[in-house]
């Protein structure tokens, strides 16, 4: 706020990756590592700096485009902090896993640009800035897929681009309409989120606008009927991109839902909760079912990811503090676990040259560490208590049961399905007589170093999630208060 004396840490956080991207191109791809380390450093110091006076840990605000009252304003609260951490962790993992595989600086440059966009999405407090960052985060990854992906990369990239862009254009339309409406009502043409939130939107229009935003965000997540881009994009993308898509961009979708769609149209929200819950449940069951019959490891994990994201959407729909906290926490948990699984799939493929379930088996006999980590993260993914996914799932289910029991009951079926497909993966990859050649190596030190922190986070969030639950407590409370005041909740 008084940004003169303090370092504007959020802006630095947001813009540094862009500098890093230029550094990659101009100097060397090592700039990416320096950048991401610096970013992690900044992000870790963030909570200590701010005061606990308001709900914002930090807030930075600059004039940007007077003509539409768009401001360069960034705000950080517990929820965004969690998301920023997730982004940076996964970005570091993405860079790490690509390091020996892709030599071109452009790859890292694109990753960093996308990183900047994602951070912007998590921090922006202005609709225009949000939209800008929303697009910036997507395109570099699309290019990464198109340039470094598998055999069907071009189609996959375009499918991803067009599906999600269709959503985001709807979002742009909604923002524009909201902007004009607000301007007409108050005479103050502004894109600032706080200002626009006070607009009185006629109920009919609010329904449409909410649908636009909801579509935009849910395509990104994605929930099941909107997931058309997902299997191919996940399968064809380089692992770094896959894990960012599932680990970070999907989260941006939910984040947008929580941060924009709900607060902007609180009164509309009750009309849509049932639909949202049904979408979540369909994702859980359908995703789980599809995951079970996949023969490609990456596709299996991709559908598993859809199923898990369904829980998060379900938690939002449940609309009570417990479920929402669970959902927000689950964003982080899912990010870590799914990313780790994708990383492991990449390691398996690197060693055996195949991702087909039929070609694999008996990994434990050849590479026990790799097998062990696959088992570990699979257990996390199937919701074993004490590991991170369980933490979020049980909170979501408790919350969902409290508001509509049958949602939780259907959700529980998803828990069973998760066990089915994850154990199938373990069965076909880890156990059995080894089918791969004798010579494959176990994880080397660098690979362990990549996965060990993630495993640590899985345990930490599974066994002692309390600090993080406290982190998202205030944001959830604030939002619920807002919803209740605006008639979004009884």
């Amino acid at each position: 706020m008084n940004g003169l004396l303090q370092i504007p840490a959020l802006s630095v956080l947001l813009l540094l990756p862009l500098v890093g991207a230029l550094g990659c191109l101009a100097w060397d791809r090592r700039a990416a590592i320096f950048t991401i380390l610096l970013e992690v450093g900044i992000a870790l110091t963030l909570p200590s700096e701010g005061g606990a006076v308001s709900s914002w840990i930090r807030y930075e605000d600059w004039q940007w485009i007077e003509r539409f009252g768009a401001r360069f304003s960034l705000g950080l609260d517990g929820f965004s902090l969690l998301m920023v951490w997730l982004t940076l962790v996964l970005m570091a993992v993405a860079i790490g896993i690509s390091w020996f595989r892709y030599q071109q600086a452009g790859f890292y440059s694109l990753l960093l640009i996308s990183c900047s966009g994602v951070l912007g999405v998590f921090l922006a407090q202005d609709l225009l800035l949000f939209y800008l960052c929303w697009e910036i985060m997507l395109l570099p990854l699309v290019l990464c897929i198109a340039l470094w992906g598998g055999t069907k990369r071009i189609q996959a990239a375009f499918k991803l681009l067009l599906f999600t862009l269709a959503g985001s254009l709807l979002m742009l339309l909604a923002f524009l309409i909201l902007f004009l409406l607000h301007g007409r009502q108050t005479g103050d043409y502004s894109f600032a989120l706080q200002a626009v939130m006070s607009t009185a939107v006629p109920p009919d229009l609010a329904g449409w606008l909410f649908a636009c935003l909801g579509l935009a965000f849910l395509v990104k997540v994605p929930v099941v009927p909107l997931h058309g881009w997902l299997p191919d994009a996940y399968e064809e993308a380089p692992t770094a991109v896959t894990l960012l898509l599932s680990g970070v961009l999907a989260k941006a979708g939910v984040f947008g839902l929580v941060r924009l769609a709900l607060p902007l149209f609180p009164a509309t929200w009750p009309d849509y909760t049932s639909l949202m819950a049904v979408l979540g449940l369909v994702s859980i069951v359908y995703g789980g079912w599809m995951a079970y019959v996949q023969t490609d490891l990456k596709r299996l994990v991709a559908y598993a990811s859809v199923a898990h994201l369904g829980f998060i959407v379900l938690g939002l729909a449940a609309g009570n503090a417990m479920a929402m906290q669970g959902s927000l926490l689950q964003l982080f948990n899912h990010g870590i676990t799914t990313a780790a699984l994708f990383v492991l799939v990449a390691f398996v493929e690197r060693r055996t040259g195949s991702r087909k379930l039929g070609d694999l088996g008996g990994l434990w006999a050849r590479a026990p560490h790799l097998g062990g980590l696959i088992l570990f993260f699979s257990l996390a993914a199937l919701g074993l208590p004490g590991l991170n996914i369980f933490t979020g799932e049980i909170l979501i289910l408790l919350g969902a049961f409290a508001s509509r029991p049958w949602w939780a009951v259907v959700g529980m079926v998803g828990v069973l399905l998760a066990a089915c497909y994850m154990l199938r993966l373990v069965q076909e990859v880890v156990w059995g007589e080894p089918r791969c050649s004798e010579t494959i190596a176990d994880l080397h030190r660098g690979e362990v170093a990549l996965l060990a922190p993630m495993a640590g986070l899985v345990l930490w969030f599974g066994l002692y999630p309390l600090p993080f639950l406290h982190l998202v407590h205030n944001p959830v409370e604030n939002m619920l208060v807002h919803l209740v005041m605006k008639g979004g909740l009884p």
Partner: protein
Amino acid sequence: MTWDMLPALLPLLALFVGSVTVLFLPARRALPFGAWCGLLVIGLIWWPGISSEVPAPLVSSGGFAKVCTTLWALIGAATCLLANRCCLNRRLERREFAALILFAVFGMAILSASTSLVSLFLGLEAMTLAFYVLVAFNRENPTGAEAGLKYLLPGFLASALLSFGIALVYAATGSFDLPEAVLLSAAVAPMSSVALLGWALILSAAAFKASLAPFHLWTPDVYQGAPSPVAGLLASGSKGAVIAALLGSMPLALLDPMRPLLAGLAALSMIIGTFAALPQTNIKRMLAYSSVVHMGYLVLALLADQQTGIQAGMFYVITYGAATVAAFGLVASMSDSGGEPENYAALDGLARRSPWRAGLFTCVLLSLAGFPPLAGFMGKFVLFGAALESGYLWLVILALLSSLVSCYYYLRPIIRMFNVASKEGGGAPVNGGERLVFALCAAVILIAGTYPAPFFRLVANMLP
């Protein structure tokens, strides 16, 4: 006409005198002279010592005209700088080339500054006459002559339509003055349908110049056959000037019956342009269809409320102009004595051979596609916002859909540039003039996308 009108006319006179003078210079000086001449004009416009308070007849000298003339002069100067390589490669006559460019800019300046249907006609014809020659300038090449023919005949037809339209408007209202003629058209009850007929004919002619569907058929052939710098000038300057004239002095949207016409043109352009660009494999033809789409977007500005319409439209013209000049400039800069690299195949591996060109081309195409944080996004944003404000939701949705589909054809060349391994050696190095133009365009694309406030202040100056 008196001497105190001279300051107002000075930029136009400078362009005209320049275009004559350049013919007497040594050939190697001609194109730089053209560029300097453009800068001189800009200087004359903005030099505080020259006050243009006494208006000249037929052309205005207000803020709108000043900014427009500046734009066309800049684009003209850029075209001169970009033309050098292609003139040298193909041994074209540089003096005449520079003279024609300056003359075309002269026509554009009159066109966008016109306050009367007479000057409008005059400007349009001056510009078009220069382009007839410029398009066919590379006459050794059979496509050059063919392009000339394909621009000439529809151009003639358009002139006829335009002049008949003007004559009808005059017959109905008794005035050539703009915008009185527009405002009178609604008032002269018995004759208003004649006036409207006249405006519709004028609109068809303008649609031809701006290549709005279904008047766009010449565009791809002419862009392909013309030398790239000329195509760039044609796409950015000539179309921009026509749109500027429609925006600034001919508020057709004030006539209610004209609105569906405009909306129809916009819708058709977006649909046809977008789809027809999809299967293209020739860069210049793709850019041609893309320009059809962009002109369709620009019609939205015509439909908007005039104040916001002018701002949004001119901002869009600036962003689109920068991107288009850079795109055609890049094609020109990669040309050699064998011709220009037209097919996508020529782009394969460009990122290896010439990373800066590839980078700029990527920026340009992404800006045209409207990806933030590049200028094209901001342009579309204000444009669609303006259209939405005046209630054209369906057109905005159509425009959004067309932007969505258009991503495909903008991204395809980008992917080829980076994807396929290099086949040939590095292209010719970028020369100084080109570097200047590219830097300027890149700056506009980036700044207008991330911090557009100065540009908005600029276009806000244009309001009457």
